[in-house]
């Protein structure tokens, strides 16, 4: 299955729900959250962790298998995470489409190479650590004052996080939470549409859903 750079919708978190009080999160191949909630399958949530399962802090994830007070974190393996202690959850209530986006890129960073070479060694020795968070960018038509651009500006000014959802050809979906920088610069060239650039750095994992 190939995805084409067409009919790609980039959406930004516009509003969030009231805080959802979490009472437990399991450590499973797909974590199960216990919380009094009114979520439905396909909702996107994110977490604020004050103690315990710190790996989940800021993580955005799609919800599936909502049943009673439980829901499953689709595609998020919490097996090796710290034990749950204190977590608040928010649902992304409404989205704003970044209609001006012309390209989005988020290259995979290489794993960190840690040099273990000593003075006695005759060849370099390395061990490899975790990769840095990927830095991403969105280039699009310059649209000052547009609703999505204002959200980016607000997130930039407050150093706040904002969830992004990309839908590819109406089928595949990518979800991540990120820090954002944008809303000020632009690029003007003769006889070309003005463009501007948005930079972002995801928090937690970027999760891809095939459908």
């Amino acid at each position, binding site marked *: 299955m190939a995805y084409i750079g*067409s*009919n790609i*919708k980039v959406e930004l978190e516009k509003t969030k729900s009231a805080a959802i009080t979490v009472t437990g999160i399991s450590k499973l191949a797909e974590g199960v959250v216990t919380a009094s909630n009114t979520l439905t399958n396909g909702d996107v949530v994110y977490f604020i962790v004050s103690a315990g399962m710190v790996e989940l802090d800021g993580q955005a994830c799609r919800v599936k298998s909502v049943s009673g007070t439980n829901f499953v974190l689709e595609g998020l393996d919490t097996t090796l995470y710290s034990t749950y202690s204190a977590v608040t959850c928010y649902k992304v209530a409404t989205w704003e489409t970044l*209609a*001006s*986006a*012309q390209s989005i890129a988020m290259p995979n960073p290489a794993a960190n190479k840690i040099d273990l070479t000593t003075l006695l060694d005759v060849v370099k020795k390395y061990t490899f650590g975790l990769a840095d968070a990927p830095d991403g960018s969105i280039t699009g*038509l310059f649209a000052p004052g547009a609703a999505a651009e204002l959200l980016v500006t607000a997130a930039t000014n407050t150093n706040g996080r904002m969830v992004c959802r990309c839908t590819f050809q109406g089928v595949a979906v990518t979800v991540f939470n990120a820090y954002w920088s944008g809303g000020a610069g632009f690029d003007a060239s003769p*006889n070309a*549409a003005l463009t501007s650039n948005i930079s972002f750095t995801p928090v937690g994992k970027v999760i891809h859903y095939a459908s």
Partner: protein
Amino acid sequence: MSIHSDIVTALAGVASGKVYPDAAPEGVEPPLVLYRRLSYDPLMTLQGYAGLAQSTFLFECWGKPTVSVTAKASALTLAAAVQAAIDASTVLTSRFRVPVTGEEYDVNTMELMEPVQYSFWHS
């Protein structure tokens, strides 16, 4: 308004109104202007068409010698009039003059064509 009708409006006062798309009607003599679209480039975003496109048009300014003027001078005068009309137009606001090469000379009719090329942003 379409880009074609905007061009007609902008050039209404040029060459005594002898401005035609693609080809002149039979029997119409230069000086006259023929125009045609060379390219159409829609502005796209990741979602789709952004509602604007860039079209490049070639304006062939055909001059003809008279007792007092050469074909070259006639064509150059006409080309300058086309440029002035487009640059002064209030309907072709997103215009951009682009490089163009090659004039044409018809040895049989002694008519000379001076090309003018513009790119326009339009909906």
